[in-house]
């Protein structure tokens, strides 16, 4: 029962994350895929804060991971990021696609590191 509850929490977090991501995507209407970028940065920041709160990225118990990892994973997305990069290359320029990739990677990594730093 306890294990089932943890799975339910993970699924609930993922579902809520997806809904919030979609809500933000509907609010931010722009030619460039800024909504995915913003969502990924916010999710990475939240995950950094949570991992930092739990005390580093190595030693984390299974139970502690559930809700926040479920939420952050459901909230952030790799597949939309990849597909939008492809579309940028196809419909705009290679430079925009490369910029999207580098910006996403750099800013999300920075956001995660910032979250870890804040909780140190």
């Amino acid at each position, binding site marked *: 029962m306890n294990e089932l509850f943890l*799975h339910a929490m*993970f*699924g*609930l*977090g*993922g*579902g*809520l*994350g*997806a*809904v919030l*991501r*979609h*809500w933000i*995507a*509907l609010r931010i*209407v722009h*030619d*460039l*895929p800024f*909504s995915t970028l913003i969502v*990924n940065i916010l*999710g*990475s920041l*939240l*995950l*950094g804060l949570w*991992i930092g709160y739990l005390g580093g*990225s*190595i030693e984390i118990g299974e139970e502690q991971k559930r809700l926040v*990892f*479920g939420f*952050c*994973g*459901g*909230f*952030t*997305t*790799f*597949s*939309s*990021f*990849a*597909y*939008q*990069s*492809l*579309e940028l290359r196809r*419909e705009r320029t290679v430079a925009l696609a490369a910029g999207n*990739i580098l910006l*996403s*990677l750099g800013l*999300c*990594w920075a*956001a*995660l*590191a910032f979250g*870890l730093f804040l909780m140190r």
Partner: protein
Amino acid sequence: MTQKPTHVRTTALMFGAVFIGGAVGSLLRELFSVSIPHAGFLTQTFGINIVACFILGWLYSVRNRVHAHVLHLGTVGFCGGLSTFSSFVSELERLALSNIWVAASAAALEIAVGLAAAILGEAIGRRFHPPRATE
């Protein structure tokens, strides 16, 4: 989503579809991240992100053929819930603690393979479900 159909109203059903897709995708992600052993020089999220990219490419190749709610369930919900960027960067951070170049090459490799998987999914989708002449 750069090409969101504007005629679809935001309804509870739409968000319900996104919620269900996200929950199922997240549970699958949890399942795979626990049960699949992974190589030490790659991130744990490698496999699921690649699979999600492949499915997303396939779904977008038939985007004009399926109902908008089904598309939202699959793309925004399921693929978005299955793939993750936050755990991806946290895994990179973990790799970077031991060696920054391992982390950088893992990032480059995962993104390159993810793009390739999306292209492959799209190509296969086009092949199996060619666009109708009226479209």
